């Protein structure tokens, strides 16, 4: 005689209480995840989100914060993404879980994080059916891009610029022996074909922006000379405001790859008789470009944002001590055919030129970037030689 109670109904009741495993959405209905961890990657993510939503207004885009690599201050987080991230990528196995899960159709990034790169090198994962498609873009203007190309070799899609770099990448890829399915495209959300501003709009604008860069000019006296030049421009144009656009406030971004040795707010206090229309700002790039009549920079990739917004741009490389600045020559090479490299004399007299159209077409991609990216993801879903997750 069995004295033990029959546990079967209890087990059945417990089974009913356990929430069922959520059924994954069909691949092409899943959200897209955009990764970020610092200001550069967050700018990329925000712009990529705009491109994707322009291509498909119903597409769900999640912003994924890579917590372990965070270099954003709370001020920057609040300013650039007040609504907060949709997904926090944290923990030792975060990338493995993302790649083996069926939550996303694609992961888009402008930086191949170490653990993500490690996942992408796994052959068995590479051929896995139903995993997200990983698309890597460049981090921005890269003076020495070849290392970045190598780090992106295992991604499912690589989007590059300028267009003339695509054959360079193809040549390098021939020498890599661990390549799997990959599509190479042209573009970056910060490098979309420029907008055209109406002459009336431009004429009504009074703001001149100098976009600072952490590393250039590299010396203290080089920076002081730039500040003196900006002060002189402000004095010569009392009806305009000359803004020194800071990328971050002093003391912020101490974990950023590029650390600033001589900050402009500190140097400005050393100038005597600073004109009232020479001001500092830590506003966002988009805010600056809404009112800018002219954008000036030395080696900052901000030049690209200025051109994209249809605002006249000057790349000034003749600053004091430019010969000890390692970024000057690569910047000069990249902008050699742009027609935008401006001498100090032309800068002081506000004599700007329009970008060379051929150079512009090589550097800036068509505005349908979001559509092309989603097409890459679609083709990824149909790639040959896929292995069902149950067999991996």
């Amino acid at each position, binding site marked *: 005689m069995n004295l033990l109670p029959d546990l079967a109904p209890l087990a059945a009741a417990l089974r009913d209480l356990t929430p069922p495993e959520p059924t994954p959405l069909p691949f092409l209905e899943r959200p897209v995840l955009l990764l970020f961890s610092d200001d550069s990657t967050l700018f990329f993510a925000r712009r990529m989100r705009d491109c994707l939503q322009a291509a498909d207004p119903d597409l769900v885009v999640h912003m994924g914060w890579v917590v372990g690599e965070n270099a954003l201050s709370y001020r920057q987080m609040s300013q650039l993404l007040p609504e907060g991230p949709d997904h926090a990528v944290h923990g030792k196995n975060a990338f493995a879980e993302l790649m083996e899960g069926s939550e996303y159709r694609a992961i888009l990034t402008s930086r191949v994080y170490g653990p993500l790169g490690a996942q992408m090198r796994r052959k068995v994962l590479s051929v896995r059916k139903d995993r997200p498609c990983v698309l890597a873009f460049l981090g921005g203007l890269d003076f020495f891009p070849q290392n970045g190309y190598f780090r992106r070799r295992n991604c499912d899609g690589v989007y590059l610029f300028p267009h003339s770099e695509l054959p360079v990448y193809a040549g390098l890829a021939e020498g890599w022996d661990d390549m799997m399915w990959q599509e190479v495209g042209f573009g970056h959300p910060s490098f979309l074909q420029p907008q055209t501003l109406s002459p009336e709009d431009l004429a009504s604008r009074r703001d001149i922006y100098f976009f600072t860069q952490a590393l250039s000019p*590299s*010396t*203290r006296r080089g920076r002081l*000379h730039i500040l*003196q*030049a900006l*002060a*002189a421009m402000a*004095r*010569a144009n009392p009806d305009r405001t000359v803004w020194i656009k800071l990328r971050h406030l002093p003391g912020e971004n101490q974990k950023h790859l590029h650390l600033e040795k001589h900050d402009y707010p500190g140097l400005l206090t050393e100038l*005597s*008789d600073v004109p009232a229309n020479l001001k500092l700002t830590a506003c966002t790039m988009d805010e600056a470009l809404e009112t800018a009549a002219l954008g000036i920079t030395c080696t900052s990739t901000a030049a690209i944002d200025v051109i994209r917004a249809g605002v006249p741009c000057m790349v000034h490389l*003749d*600053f*004091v*001590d*430019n*010969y*000890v600045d390692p970024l000057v020559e690569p910047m000069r090479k990249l902008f050699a055919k742009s027609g935008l490299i401006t*001498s*100090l*004399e032309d800068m*002081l*007299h506000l004599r700007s030129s329009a970008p060379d159209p051929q150079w512009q077409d090589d550097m800036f991609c068509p505005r349908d970037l979001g559509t092309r990216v989603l097409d890459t993801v679609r083709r990824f879903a149909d790639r040959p030689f896929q292995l069902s997750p149950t067999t991996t």
Partner: protein
Amino acid sequence: MIAKLKKTALGKAIYRLSRARLGAPLQMLSRAVQHEALQLEHLKSAHRSHNQRQIDILAHFEAQIASSQPGKVPRASEQNT
């Protein structure tokens, strides 16, 4: 030059010494040698004339502003020339 030195055996030995308990003076010396104002590049005549040209352009511009705005005192950079 510093980058090249770092890769040599001597460079590595100096680095190890600088990390030792009594390495502080060596670190101070290293910082002084690498100071931005002490770079040999500053001594090249082409570089000195480049810097002077930029200073002159700015001074000339500031003089122009001062002359178009009577009563304005010339800037420091104008007084250098």
